[in-house]
């Protein structure tokens, strides 16, 4: 059962990838339908079935039907397909960007060293960033006095 929920979550993200790297709006609508059904099934597995029913009826049955006949108004008669090289490049590139973002932000725990400043990932918690941020929150007086002193120095130099 747990694997099914994980599979629905993966299908949701893959539907998002399909919409983003669509070769033609026809395939983008397919990705959106897959993502909406996966999201609805996921919400049912978490127990909130009314919200899932509303998603399927209003979103899929209402909005996407309107989108589908607008796509038939606006799209090409000879669309490019999933196997054209530009589309594969886009899909791969966007998936790569998401993977790099996940690794750097510490989700997979690959970039964290024990006992150093990188204790919770490379960019998640840094001692020097959070220390310097105090200058803008509780140390706002220091910021204002420093700015005032710099302004006075500017007038002194210009004289």
């Amino acid at each position: 059962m747990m694997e099914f929920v994980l599979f629905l979550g993966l299908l949701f993200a893959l539907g998002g990838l399909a919409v983003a790297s669509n070769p033609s709006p026809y395939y983008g609508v397919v990705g959106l339908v897959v993502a909406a059904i996966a999201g609805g099934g996921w919400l049912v597995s978490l127990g909130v079935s009314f919200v899932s029913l509303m998603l399927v009826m209003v979103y899929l049955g209402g909005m996407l039907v309107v989108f589908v006949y607008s796509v038939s108004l606006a799209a090409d008669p000879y669309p490019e397909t999933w196997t054209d090289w530009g589309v594969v490049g886009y899909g791969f590139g966007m998936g790569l960007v998401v993977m790099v973002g996940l690794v750097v932000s510490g989700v997979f725990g690959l970039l964290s060293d024990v006992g150093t400043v990188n204790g919770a990932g490379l960019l998640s918690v840094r001692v020097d960033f959070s220390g310097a941020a105090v200058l803008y929150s509780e140390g706002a007086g220091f910021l204002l006095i420093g700015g005032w002193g710099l302004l006075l120095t500017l007038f002194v130099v210009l004289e």
Partner: protein
Amino acid sequence: MSHLHLSFYSAFILSSLGLAFHRTHLISALLCLESMMLSMYVALAMWPIQMQSPSSTIIPIIMLTFSACEAGTGLALLVASTRTHGSDYLHNFNLLRC
């Protein structure tokens, strides 16, 4: 981050990348906007589940209402620009180019 959050987070990022790199059609940019709204709906629906507060369930429903309004407005713009320009190719929308 639990795998639930990871899933709609990555779907939102991918859709916003697809909106930023829109290539030929205006309607594929509108479809990316719709999928951003879908991932936000699922994210907001997680709130009453994880905080155990049933009255927060109205928030995704209200968001879906306004997302439907926005989709209708976007499609009306699409139809209007298809009527004047003949198609919705983005490189034809160059009236404001200097």
